[in-house]
């Protein structure tokens, strides 16, 4: 068998392998770590690297216009509900790319960041499990399977948030997270049961094909959106997020951003695909709900960020604000797409919202990595006690500047590209929305300039006079993300045309997603 046959075989089974490789790797990690620590770290990075290769292999196929289905279980179509389908379209693989890049960078970052901790075999096992869970959530085409992967992700991320069990606050944040996410997952299961009871199906496409928008479906819609928005940290339910992001080790926070966005992907999948057939006919209200939630999330996140004194909590509130932009973009898209004369700007809004998912993951991720680097070097997270670090940590300072510019949407960085799309398109829907969005960006800039000034500038403090630059693995991982940010910022058109537009199209044209499965004969 030559190489190209082997690649074809890999591609054919890639949806299964993308979940299976990190899952198996997770359970091999404790065995490998019996050899020594270095072997384990290399093994984890190789596992994630191989998964990333598979994701990109599948992505190159999916972005050229195919929807990829993979059948687990009975291939014979005449038997009902005895199989699980993985259905990969452009938006699924778009989210999978984000998750796998974040996980790989987090694994590289942890090499030195977590070096002084014990129990690292469990740490890496959980990181790989969480990656498998996130990728499963994004690739699956089955509601119950979605619930299972949601629970895998929540259990492993709660354990990781509480990884520093010697700190009371970390354990508390972990407890808060597991309570929130298990209740959310139970409600998802409840709505799965509502669907199953009515349509005798668990497959997303089959449910979407049969949905009628009766009373029970409305209950299921509310439960699904509330539960998944709670896991995504949308404002009335955001209280767990600053704790979880702020108290977890920085490497974990990076993967946690991916988990949060996988839940956000769930919200979009529910709104656009499962209810795609009926929402267009019925109301525009869900779009407006998302817009209003987005605006509130943005304002509350940014305003709360101003008064924080702990660096990581501050970035966590900024992350809440950023989630608002995505909801605003997607919600404005959902509202505008219904009326024909607004469809063009609605599509722009969708592109902005989806592009911003990716940009936010990298911008906020980079800021968390820098906060972790500051913590690693000084063991301090309070802004009031830091100062003058630019003298000793010049690379970290540069990375912080890149993150600062990107998160507040300043032109050469990627944040500008997606935020501009959101401003332009929401302005056509309602100018006030665009004004609030721009105002929040300005406030984000003000906040991060303040931190930059208090942490990096100023006179050199005596207690930090012998602070050293952080080790190489942390610099490499921050460098990777910075490079992505700058490349995306310089060539936004390329990214938008090749990656974002297929993803936006995949969300809007739910009929293709449905017909792909129905043409198989239904599951």
């Amino acid at each position, binding site marked *: 068998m030559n190489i190209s046959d082997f690649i074809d075989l890999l591609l054919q089974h890639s949806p299964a392998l993308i979940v299976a490789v990190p899952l198996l790797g997770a359970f091999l990690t404790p065995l490998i770590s019996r050899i020594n620590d270095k072997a384990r770290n290399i093994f984890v990075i190789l596992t994630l690297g191989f998964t990333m290769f598979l994701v990109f292999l599948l992505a190159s196929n999916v972005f050229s216009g195919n929807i990829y289905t993979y059948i687990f279980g009975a291939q014979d179509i005449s038997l009902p509900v005895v199989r699980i389908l993985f259905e990969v379209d452009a938006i699924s693989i778009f989210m999978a790319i984000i998750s796998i890049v974040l996980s790989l960078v987090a694994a590289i970052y942890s090499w030195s960041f977590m070096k002084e901790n014990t129990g690292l075999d469990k740490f890496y096992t959980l990181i790989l499990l969480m990656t498998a869970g996130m990728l499963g959530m994004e690739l699956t085409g089955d509601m119950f399977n979605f619930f299972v992967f949601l*629970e895998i992700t929540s259990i492993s991320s709660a354990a990781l948030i509480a990884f520093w069990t010697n700190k009371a606050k970390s*354990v508390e944040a972990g407890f808060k997270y*597991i309570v929130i996410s298990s209740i959310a997952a139970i409600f998802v299961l409840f709505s799965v*049961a509502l669907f199953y009871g009515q349509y005798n199906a668990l497959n997303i496409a089959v449910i979407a094909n049969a949905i009628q928008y009766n009373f029970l479906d409305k209950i299921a819609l509310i439960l699904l959106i509330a539960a998944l928005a709670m896991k995504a940290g949308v404002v009335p339910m955001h209280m767990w997020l600053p704790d979880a992001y702020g108290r977890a080790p920085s490497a974990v926070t990076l993967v946690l951003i991916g988990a949060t966005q996988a839940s956000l992907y769930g919200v979009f999948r529910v709104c656009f695909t499962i209810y795609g057939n009926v929402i267009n006919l019925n109301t525009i209200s869900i779009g407006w709900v998302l817009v209003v939630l987005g605006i509130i999330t943005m304002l509350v996140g940014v305003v709360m960020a101003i008064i924080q004194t702990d660096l990581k909590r501050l970035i966590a509130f900024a992350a809440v604000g950023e989630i608002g932009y995505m909801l605003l973009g997607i919600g404005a898209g959902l509202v505008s797409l219904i009326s024909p004369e607004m469809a063009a700007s609605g599509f722009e809004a969708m592109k902005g919202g989806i592009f911003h998912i990716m940009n936010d993951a990298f911008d906020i991720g980079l800021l968390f990595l820098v906060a972790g680097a500051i913590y690693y070097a000084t063991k301090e997270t309070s802004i009031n006690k830091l100062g003058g670090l630019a003298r000793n940590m010049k690379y970290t300072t540069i990375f912080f500047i890149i993150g600062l510019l990107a998160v507040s949407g300043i032109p050469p960085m990627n944040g500008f590209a997606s935020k501009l799309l959101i401003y332009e398109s929401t302005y056509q829907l309602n100018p006030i929305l665009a004004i609030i969005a721009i105002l929040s960006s300005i406030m984000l800039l003000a906040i991060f300039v303040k931190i930059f000034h208090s942490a990096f500038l100023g006179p050199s403090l005596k207690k930090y006079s012998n602070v050293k630059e952080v080790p190489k693995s942390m610099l490499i991982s921050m460098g990777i993300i910075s490079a992505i940010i700058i490349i995306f910022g310089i060539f936004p058109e390329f990214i938008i045309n090749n990656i974002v537009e297929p993803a936006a199209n995949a969300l809007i044209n739910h009929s293709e997603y449905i017909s792909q499965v129905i043409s198989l004969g239904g599951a």
Partner: protein
Amino acid sequence: MIFNIPFIAVAALILIGLYAVIFKRNLIKIVIGITIIQSGVNLFLITLGYREGSIAPIYTSSPGGIMSLPVPQALTLTSIVIGVAVLALMLSLAVHIFRHYKTLNVKKIGGDEE
């Protein structure tokens, strides 16, 4: 009416569980509340698959007659296993919280102990 009783029980279990999660101050009671919601949803799944007078869905030794639907039972089994994992994790975190704060009362947890 009599066949609606399982659904009434489901609603009651979920509401009792939510009450415990929202209003109780003790962490262990919150954990119990979550478990009760979970049982409610599991009962809902099982009830969906049940038909009056049906037997267990084992094809090889079936005496004939209608069988209850096996899929919801498989789903419930999965959900129970996941529930055990979540329960174990929550309780172990509660143990850690108790070690740090010497209390399980939500009101007294969260002070600046570090």
